[in-house]
């Protein structure tokens, strides 16, 4: 810890000479380099604070924000430009890359010229919306400067903005004189999204509104935003703490408004000087990391228990240990690091978390470890009664302050075997401890004479408690049928228990394989018991089933009968599944042979082609000839229309001339419709 401190001091000494915490190369983008005259005081102030200013126009070909992948500037100021875009060197993509590389941007707009599309895209990426057509003018008929805009009402006079919430430090208005006024001349208001990274610094008064002076000079038909929804100056801080400030009115940064005389309309006081210069300094200072930058100097945690070693930042703790955590923080304020002080309603919080926080505690200032350039915050707490890998986490993210997210990982082990309270400390254990002193143990009881006597007696009588004693391994040596039956029943019980367990979806493949093995072993044992029962002259259980297993469709299951079988989820194991699929496929092929050419041929024999047996030798032909002759004679005798005796009449032979009546197509249709009707009616 001592060495850490001295390192901090060394770092501190290096930083003091630099003006901003993140470099001093500042790029100023202007339409015309001559325009900078208007901002000479603002730019002079920046130079006075140690920034190196480079002036470029958007069209300049030498302008590049990156060189060999490194930022060439630390900060950028955009002043209003007439051009629609900002050229290929300042596309929104490049600007986002610039912010991703921790570059800071200050954008100023003006109602006189439309905002460049590049900046509009960048701002919309950050959830800041500018008025439609990139133009808008904020006016307020109730809070305007009567001196300079008595008619147009487009110079807003506002009090310096306080913090937006009570738990946020006042960066922009602190120390301002009571009657100080900010002039916001001819500016553009923006609407902010719900992002937590955005903070409005200066909001429009409730009677202000934004309109398009070109199209809505007469009537405000489509209102962009009004009142406090209009952010005149707003800031954005990315997750990497890169900053962007949007100043709606570039004119408010100009020399003519620095300390200018302004008088609010209807005000009773005389004209006062504007607060613009100080405000411009603070907004630019915030954007360029001169204020509101936080730094973690060191973090220390140790056991806070009597008699424990005072080792710093150990990697392992035990559950329910008392632990002290200290973090030292500094805040940069213009020229030097100062101790971080929190507003009364805010708190620096420590989370002790595994996945989610178990503790979230407020850290309180620790004066003993603080110095003029750092403030230590500490807390002591008892670790939760849960072992695992935990994090000490300080996640201090607040609007306008750079983000702090510190994570220190420690293991928390459970109690060791010798860290529990001794049994004689636990009053409930006293009778048991006394018992150990005066009695013998159970295993000795088992050896006692009485026990052995009873056991022998039970064995003689053939009463054996099947539930309690072990199933004998030597099955063939068992010579009583009832005990064999009992053992077989026990095996069956175990099998059914395991077969239902193997369906459990939570089992792993290995567990399933093991279970399946056990079931197969039990099946073998069951078979052996059955054989033994049969040999002893008992019922023959083995005959049932015949060793084959059938599925619901009556087909035999391969691998289902004798030999190794698969149960439940074991059938879905890799390897086994393929086996069953292959078997099922084979079965399917066996079932439909007629569809295949080979199968068809198998059914075709000589008879199919007319070579019927007995036809060649003439016997059948002779018989047929004889019957034909008889029929002809009978017909000749009986005459037409009458069946000869012993003959069945065919339809149409009835003599009434009626032959087979085939239904006509219409009749078939009628009948079909009738049937369908009936079926439908039945359904109803």
């Amino acid at each position: 810890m001592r060495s850490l401190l001295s390192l901090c001091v060394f770092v501190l000494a290096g930083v003091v000479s630099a003006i901003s915490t993140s470099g001093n190369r500042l790029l100023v983008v202007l339409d015309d380099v001559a325009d900078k005259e208007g901002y000479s005081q603002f730019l002079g102030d920046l130079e006075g604070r140690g920034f190196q200013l480079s002036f470029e126009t958007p069209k300049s070909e030498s302008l590049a924000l990156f060189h060999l992948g490194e930022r060439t500037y630390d900060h950028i100021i955009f002043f209003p430009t007439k051009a629609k875009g900002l050229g290929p060197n300042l596309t929104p993509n490049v600007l986002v890359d610039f912010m991703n590389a921790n570059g800071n941007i200050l954008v100023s707009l003006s109602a006189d010229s439309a905002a460049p599309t590049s900046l509009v895209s960048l701002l919309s990426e950050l959830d800041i919306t500018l008025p439609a057509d990139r133009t808008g003018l904020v006016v307020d008929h109730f809070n305007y400067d009567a001196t300079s805009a008595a008619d147009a009402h487009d110079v807003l006079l506002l009090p310096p903005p306080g913090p937006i919430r009570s738990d946020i430090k006042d960066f922009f208005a602190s120390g301002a004189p009571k009657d100080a006024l900010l002039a916001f001349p001819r500016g553009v208001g923006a609407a902010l999204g719900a992002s937590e990274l955005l903070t409005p610094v200066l909001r429009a008064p409730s009677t202000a509104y934004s309109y398009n002076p070109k199209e809505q000079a007469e009537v405000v038909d489509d209102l962009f935003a009004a009142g406090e929804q209009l952010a005149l100056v707003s800031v954005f801080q990315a997750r990497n703490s890169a900053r962007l400030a949007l100043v709606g009115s570039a004119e408010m940064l100009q020399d003519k408004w620095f300390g200018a005389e302004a008088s609010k309309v209807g005000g009773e006081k005389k004209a006062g000087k504007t607060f613009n210069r100080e405000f411009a300094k603070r907004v630019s200072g915030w954007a360029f990391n001169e204020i509101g930058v936080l730094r973690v100097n060191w973090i220390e945690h140790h056991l806070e228990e009597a008699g424990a070693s005072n080792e710093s930042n150990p990697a392992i703790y035990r559950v329910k240990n008392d632990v002290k955590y200290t973090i030292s923080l500094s805040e940069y304020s213009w020229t030097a690091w100062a101790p971080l002080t929190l507003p009364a309603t805010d708190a620096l919080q420590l989370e002790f978390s595994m996945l989610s926080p178990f503790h979230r505690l407020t850290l309180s200032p620790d004066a003993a470890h603080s110095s003029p350039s750092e403030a230590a915050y500490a807390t002591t707490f008892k670790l939760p009664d849960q072992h695992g890998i935990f994090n000490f986490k300080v996640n201090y993210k607040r609007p306008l302050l750079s983000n702090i997210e510190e994570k220190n990982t420690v293991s928390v082990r459970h109690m060791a075997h010798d860290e529990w309270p001794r049994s004689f400390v636990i009053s409930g254990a006293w009778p048991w401890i006394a018992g150990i002193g005066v009695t013998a143990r159970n295993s000795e009881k088992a050896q006692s004479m009485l026990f052995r006597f009873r056991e022998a007696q039970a064995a003689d009588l053939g009463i054996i408690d099947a539930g309690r004693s072990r199933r004998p391994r030597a099955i063939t040596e068992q010579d009583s049928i009832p005990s064999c039956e009992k053992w077989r029943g026990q095996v069956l019980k175990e099998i059914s228990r395991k077969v239902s367990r193997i369906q459990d979806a939570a089992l792993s493949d290995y567990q399933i394989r093991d279970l399946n093995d056990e079931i197969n072993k039990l099946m073998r044992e069951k078979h052996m018991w059955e054989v033994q029962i049969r040999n002893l002259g008992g019922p023959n259980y083995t005959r049932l089933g015949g060793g084959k297993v059938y599925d619901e469709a009556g087909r035999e299951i391969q691998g289902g009968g004798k030999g190794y079988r698969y149960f439940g989820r074991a059938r879905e194991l890799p390897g086994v599944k393929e086996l069953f699929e292959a078997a099922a496929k084979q079965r399917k092929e066996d079932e439909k042979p007629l569809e295949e050419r080979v199968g068809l041929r198998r059914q075709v024999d000589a008879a199919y082609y007319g070579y019927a047996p007995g036809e060649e030798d003439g016997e059948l032909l002779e018989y047929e000839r004889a019957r034909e002759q008889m029929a002809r004679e009978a017909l000749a005798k009986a005459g037409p229309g009458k069946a000869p005796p012993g003959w069945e009449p065919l339809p149409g032979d009835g003599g009434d001339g009626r032959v087979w009546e085939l239904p006509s197509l219409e009749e078939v249709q009628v009948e079909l419709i009738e049937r369908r009707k009936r079926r439908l009616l039945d359904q109803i």
Partner: protein
Amino acid sequence: MRLTQSIAPALLLLVAGVAQAASGWGFEDASVQIATKKAAESIREKFTQTSPLAKPVSLGTTNTLKLSLTAKDNGKGKRPHQAFLVLQEQESGLEAPFPLTVKESGKAVAQITQKDLPVQFLLASKPLKASVVLASFGSAPGLNSPVFEVQIEADASAPRPAYEKPLRYGKQPEIHHIFRPDPKSPPKIISLVFGLAVIATLPALLVGWAVLGGNLNHLTTAMGAAPLSHASFFGSIVAMEFVFFMYYTSWNLFQTLPVIGAVAAVAVLSGTKALGEVQSRRLAGQR
């Protein structure tokens, strides 16, 4: 300019006082109507610049709030650039402006239904404050006067609209881990009574033996036959109990095992002799 400045305070007083309509922006013929689907049930209430409606008007889910007025500049009908009806939620101060549609003559109307309002307004517990803002360019002072209050009637059958507060960085509620309760023991007196009851069985046993005629006659013969082995065998058993006691109280396994080994060796060596002696007596039929 100097003149207007000096006049301004006086003007302001005037405005704040009585004759508001006389100078600057104002309105006349103002009314608010809650239109329902059935025209007969519509409610129309009139108000003026100086006397806002005392009772809040209620806006149901199917109703439409219609505001109509005539904007006047110094008593003459004129179209102002800014003519808003501003609704304000009282608790959070959230405001929503609704521009009025203004004709050249100054006649202005606005129609609002619940659908036009932000979600926070629909969930407001107090009535919304409505004020009319009329102002324009030039020197005429604008008007921003409260006119009535709107009570939002929620549809009882429909679920209330959900409003999720956006994430804001700030202090979070503290969390203190709740520890599992420590294992509990019965009252000490009960443990003590039963512990003593268990211990009391040992003297009871000894007394029982004494009463039933346990004899120590062989002690002298045993000691006479093999004094060293009997003494060391008994001593090793006692020592073993002592080792176990030490293991229970303070020693670890690696301290215990060698001592057990030593004591056990003594017990085995002396035990064979001592028990052999006992066996010889038993075989001799001495009981």
